[in-house]
């Protein structure tokens, strides 16, 4: 087999050129990120252990977390809705790889939870139940993290996970459209 140097020998421009194979150029830019009005309302409400969604004035769908805009209608969602702490698992997966910086033992269950009255699902971990017993249609309730540990800082970490309520499974008709 020919070496790289032999293969490139016919290119006069490369004659005698010692290739630079690595340069190290540190670059750092700092940003102050702000989540905007709707997400701020959502995150602030979490510190008070409330789940706030926002309703589209046109199609009346309720979004959580709210982004301030209905993606179907392109309209501002101006009405805030207090959503209950209970919902339904609409899909889930079993995570077998420990995430960096996440202090949760694997395997664990990661799911979509459609809160009652919402039309998009929240991402959430399902706990308090063996992962192989989690299933679609299961009714679950939010488990809040200890408020003192969060020091009332607005954060999604206010939610620890969701846990089964023990109620019978939801009628598929209640969540089929919003999976």
């Amino acid at each position: 087999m020919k070496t790289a140097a032999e293969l490139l020998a016919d290119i006069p421009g490369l004659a005698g050129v010692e290739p630079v194979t690595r340069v190290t150029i540190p670059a750092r830019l700092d940003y102050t990120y702000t989540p905007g009005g709707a997400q701020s309302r959502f995150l602030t409400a979490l510190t008070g252990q409330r789940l706030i969604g926002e309703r589209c004035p046109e199609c009346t769908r309720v979004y959580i977390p709210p982004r301030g805009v209905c993606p179907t209608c392109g309209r501002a969602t101006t009405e805030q809705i207090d959503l209950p702490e209970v919902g339904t698992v609409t899909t889930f997966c079993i995570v077998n790889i420990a995430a960096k910086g996440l202090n949760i033992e694997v395997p664990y269950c990661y799911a979509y939870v459609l809160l009652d009255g919402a039309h998009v699902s929240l991402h959430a971990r399902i706990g308090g139940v063996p992962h192989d017993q989690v299933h679609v249609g299961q009714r679950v309730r939010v488990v809040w993290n200890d408020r003192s540990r969060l020091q009332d800082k607005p954060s999604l970490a206010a939610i620890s996970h969701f846990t089964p309520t023990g109620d019978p499974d939801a009628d598929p008709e209640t969540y089929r459209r919003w999976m």
Partner: protein
Amino acid sequence: MTTPTERDVAVVAFAQTAHRRSTDQLSEVELVLPVLQDVLKQTGLTTEQIGFTCSGSSDYLAGRAFSFTMTLDGVGAWPPISESHVEMDGAWALYEAWVKLRTGQADTALVYSYGKSSPGSVRDVLTRQLDPYTLAPLWPDAIALAALQAQTLIDAGQADERALADTAVRSRRAARDNPHAQLRGSADADDLLALPYEVQPLRRHDCPPVSDGAAAVILAVGDAARALHPRPAWIRGIDHRIEAHQPGSRDLTGSPSTRLAAVHAGAFDARVDTAELHAPFTAQELILRRALDLGDAVVVNPSGGALAANPVMAAGLIRIGEAAARIHRGESRRALAHATSGPCLQQNLIAVLEGEK
């Protein structure tokens, strides 16, 4: 003057935010949504009636990857729409939309762009567009590069600091009538020249304000355009050209790419009465005026230009919008709009807009 053909494209609506130093209470989509709603309302169109949507913005301003997707909720992107994005000023998004319309792939287009400079330091952020091996590591910030350009102009005897100050005064006083502008009004040139340098030879007044803002435009073809506006601003020509990436390999006193784009856009085919130039720094306006042969009879930057409000990634689209709005209002017959990108006017776009006879 040519008669509009079936596939001629016109600007039929334009809206922009009130640009300000910081909009940290708003997310990107919350910043953009009001201007989207505004142009839709002006035309009576709904999001599902828009044939093509194209936006311009920059991840480096937002400080996160795929940041443009955050604004897609604002255009009602579910069910899926025909959409594209350029990591450039919205003027280039408008160019892409114009191509789509000219080639018959859509009859209406929504173009928008936005820039929130406030989360980071925009003068440092802009260094990331430079050559990564030999220039970016030196962190020559946007003002330093503009100062180099201004100094070459002064050294060539084509401008002096007084001429730069006069440009700043004229622009910001013109912006008094522009409710969207951020800097509206200016001290006298004598007072400005008594102030210290920011980066010699540039003083604060030679530099644009740091702005958050957004803009949106609706384009339509032929009869669709006539149905949406009684006086469409027809795009008679549009072209963009680019120069070498290394500022050191260019003659910074001129702007051949602007002139080339202008020739191809038909800017010299007939006199323009108005020019909206995207010149964030005072010296750049002087360079552009010369590249475009703009005499004193031409009204330049009646909006105040980028010196009065400079939402990066939107300031170029706003030039097209401002020029179109003057045609819509009957204040201009034939206007030139210019947008720039890159360091020291590296890349330039020219659009020529006309009202109907």
